[in-house]
């Protein structure tokens, strides 16, 4: 993977091959878990970074749940290599991995990602047909059992924010739900989207203030400050509902309600005028600045295990 070109976008198969190569190169630290299958039967691969122990407290990172947001899967690939490169040389990451595990799902919506490469670059949702409608797919960030079906999601299968027929109806979502419940020791959950440069914490489906709001806000402030230190990319931060809009059935609302305190959603850059058609030459700068923020949250989690 040293010769893997992180500065360009890759197909689904290229990312799958990268994952297998990284595991083969680092058999003592990296393993691949298939937590389920997508609707079209593709494996939902999660890379596990562990230096030992069993069921250690862990951090979850996912990218690509909205398939068209290519800079997130590309950043996730870069994060995977960064973890194996920095372990043993970066004291902060080494300390984290000597105590905790990291789980990284790079292509959280593989059917959608494949579809963006081969049929429709604008595709965002899953690819499961909706009975009674000619429109396909569910917004996997509206399908979680947290305020499911409430305001801030659509009941129209043709909408980009369609919540689906029921909570966890999408296998891409249900597989993570089952993994989180079976693991039972996740302490941070970081779900990465693009674009609009925001770092968000619960809640999105209700105006109720999260009980850990003060701490989540302080950690977010530190995270976006470190992020901005590299290239000056400015982020806004706060709870979903106060910072952007009401969104029901969202990932981190569910994970927070499961007791995973450090639950955050990132909305990565577009500092220019590209939206999520971010030019490939911005992949590495985006990944590098985001990593600084991730390290703040992971370091805080490690130092404040609960």
């Amino acid at each position, binding site marked *: 993977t040293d010769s893997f*070109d992180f500065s360009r976008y890759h197909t689904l198969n290229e990312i799958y091959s990268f994952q297998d190569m990284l595991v083969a190169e680092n058999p003592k630290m990296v393993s691949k878990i298939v937590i389920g299958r997508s609707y079209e039967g593709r494996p939902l691969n999660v890379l596990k970074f562990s230096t030992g122990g069993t069921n250690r407290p862990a951090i979850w990172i996912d990218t690509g749940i909205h398939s068209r947001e290519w800079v997130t899967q590309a950043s996730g690939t870069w994060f995977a290599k960064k973890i194996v490169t920095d372990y043993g040389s970066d004291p902060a990451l080494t300390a984290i991995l000597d105590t905790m595990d990291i789980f990284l799902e790079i292509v959280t919506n593989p059917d959608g990602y494949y579809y963006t490469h081969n049929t429709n670059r604008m595709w965002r949702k899953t690819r499961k047909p909706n009975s009674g409608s000619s429109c396909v797919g569910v917004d996997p960030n509206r399908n979680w059992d947290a305020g499911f079906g409430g305001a801030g999601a659509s009941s129209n299968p*043709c909408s980009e924010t369609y919540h689906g027929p029921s909570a966890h109806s999408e296998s891409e979502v249900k597989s993570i739900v089952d993994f989180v419940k079976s693991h039972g020791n996740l302490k941070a959950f970081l779900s990465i989207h693009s674009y609009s440069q925001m770092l968000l914490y619960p809640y999105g489906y209700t105006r109720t203030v999260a009980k850990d709001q003060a701490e989540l806000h302080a950690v977010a402030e530190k995270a976006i400050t470190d992020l901005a230190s590299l290239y000056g990319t400015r982020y806004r931060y706060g709870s979903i509902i106060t910072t952007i809009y009401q969104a029901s059935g969202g990932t981190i609302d569910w994970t927070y309600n499961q007791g995973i305190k450090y639950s955050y959603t990132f909305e990565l850059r577009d500092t220019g005028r590209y939206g999520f*058609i971010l030019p490939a030459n911005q992949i590495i700068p985006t990944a590098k600045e985001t990593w600084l923020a991730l390290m703040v949250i992971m370091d805080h989690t490690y130092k404040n295990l609960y």
Partner: protein
Amino acid sequence: KETFDGHQVLRIAPRDEAQLALVKDMEDMMEFELDFWKGVTEVATHVDVRVPFHSLQSTKTYLESQDIKYSIMIEDLQVMLDEEQEEMDSAARDAEPRN
């Protein structure tokens, strides 16, 4: 493969809450087939929306009739996608092992 010739991405800047609500109403205009890249949040934050070619005129008429300011963030989406694809193809060619 679906193409997006003539699709534009408009960057809309609602001036106040009333205009924000008018932009929010556009989410329900299913016939326009609008794709909100950055949804309606607050007055200070712009809204980015992809507009298919067939509803460009009516969308712009709607905005202009309400005196809602907008700019064209992406003139022709397909041109940008073609550039992205070309970049991927050439990088993939470069990555192929030499004979």
